[in-house]
């Protein structure tokens, strides 16, 4: 009989069936894409710039809608979701954006607090959690700093801290290590592994092969709007992080 963790892992978190998305005048960003990501699974999305990685992430939190096909998160079809249900679903998704989307006039702590405030968390909890995340990402000393005064690497880490603050079930990260040094990259990946172990599904769009190469993760390569699934044959790291 499978353990509860294994059972959870087998549950599908993200399901895309024949999803297509084009931009005017006639640019096909995604073409008939189908993929599945399970809970507790970390998947990497690779491909050249403009391959459609960001579009795919945006479809998953319904910042954009597909032209055709089905996008399901935890068994819920995003296409037919009424606003109230969409709001509830978005509370379970954390996204680290490529352009960070930080409020540059606010403090680092205030930026990280924002998604937790939406869930009406206690102020003491929010403070503790923000400190804990900044500590994990090597930014504890920047707690009260103005977000606009941070370097790009620091902004990127704050954006990641904010994405995982609510312990979401689905984490979407768009180039999360693009501006980071080796040590910071390791910290970010440790944080993602931690959430993956907890049972979160993680989809990371990246150009950086160092964070996935030789580690046995599922890699989805996007090219010409189509996805080519690649597996690392000699490693089973996914099982390792999600068990």
């Amino acid at each position: 009989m499978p353990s509860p963790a294994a059972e959870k892992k087998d549950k599908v978190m993200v399901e895309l069936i024949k999803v297509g998305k084009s931009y005017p005048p006639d640019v096909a960003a995604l073409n008939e894409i189908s993929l599945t990501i399970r809970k507790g699974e970390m998947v990497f999305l690779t491909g050249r710039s403009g391959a459609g990685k960001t579009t795919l992430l945006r479809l998953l939190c319904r910042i954009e809608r597909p032209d055709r096909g089905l996008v399901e998160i935890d068994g819920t079809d995003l296409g037919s979701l009424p606003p109230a249900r969409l709001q509830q679903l978005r509370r379970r998704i954390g996204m680290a954006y490529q352009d960070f989307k930080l409020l540059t006039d606010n403090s680092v702590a205030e930026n990280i607090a924002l998604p937790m405030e939406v869930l009406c968390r206690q102020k003491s909890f929010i403070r503790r959690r923000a400190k804990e995340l900044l500590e994990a990402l090597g930014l504890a000393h920047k707690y009260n700093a103005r977000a606009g005064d941070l370097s790009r690497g620091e902004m990127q880490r704050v954006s990641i801290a904010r994405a995982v603050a609510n312990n979401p079930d689905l984490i979407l990260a768009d180039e999360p290590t693009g501006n980071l040094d080796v040590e910071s990259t390791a910290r970010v990946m440790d944080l993602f592994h931690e959430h993956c172990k907890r049972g979160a599904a993680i989809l990371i769009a990246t150009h950086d092969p160092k964070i996935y190469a030789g580690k046995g993760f599922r890699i989805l390569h996007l090219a010409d709007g189509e996805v080519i699934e690649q597996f690392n044959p000699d490693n089973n790291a996914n099982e390792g992080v999600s068990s």
Partner: protein
Amino acid sequence: MSFFSAILSQLWRNLRRTLGSQILTLLTITLSTLIFAFFYLVYTNMINVGNQLGDDLRLVVYLDEEPSPAMQEEYRDKILRFDGVEKIEFVSRKQAYERFKKELDTNRDVLADMPEDFLPPSIEVYPVRSLSSLTKIKRFSDYLLTLPGVLKVQYGREWIERFYSFIRLLRIIVILSGSLLILTSTFMIASTISLTLLSRERELELLRLFGASSAYIRLPYFLEGALQGFLGASLGLGTLYLLFNWITLQFSGSALFGYFPFAFLPPATIALIITLSTLLCAAGSYTSTRKILQV
């Protein structure tokens, strides 16, 4: 943290961040309320003055000959048929002579050679003491002139017409200043909230992406509008109260204030003005958030 605490926390943050424009909006609403409430206060007090003056108001209907008791009944019927008459009194030639003699006091000698029935008999008509009856007096006077045996109708016509015009002017000013209050409250709040929303577009976009509900996004702005309306009206009325007290103190010994007791707005009117201002500002905020946020 409960939902409402989260909303209040957001509200407090919004107010702190846009303190400058908040103060400007508050001052505008305070000033609009002050202008409106000032004219309304003058208007209500003028109506009271009108009622007080009405105590001494009467129409004297001069008759060509002494009416018989049957004729007196007929006059009574016809006069009382007109709305707004409180009482009527018949004054005979003799009573008129006695009154006149009394008024002349030490100079009553001038009447020595005059017959006691040289003054015409009259009917004194006392209208009800209300502004609306005051405004009908001209029509009433015209009606009395049509009665049989009436020579002349006398009353303070010019004064009443001037007073009535003044009250009418005040009424227009009250309506205009009320409209000003409505426009400034609604538009100032709407534009302040719009500016706040536009300056926080990025944060609002993020809130939506984090799954914030429409109520979570909109309520702080709605409350901000309501709070501005409440505080603006309260400050405006508070200022007016201070001014009223100062003026009353300055003119405390004057005959005018002794004769007409000027009063401040009653608590029910104060509550109504504050409630209206709060609702108007909340409505301004509501339309603005609805238009910009589309949530």
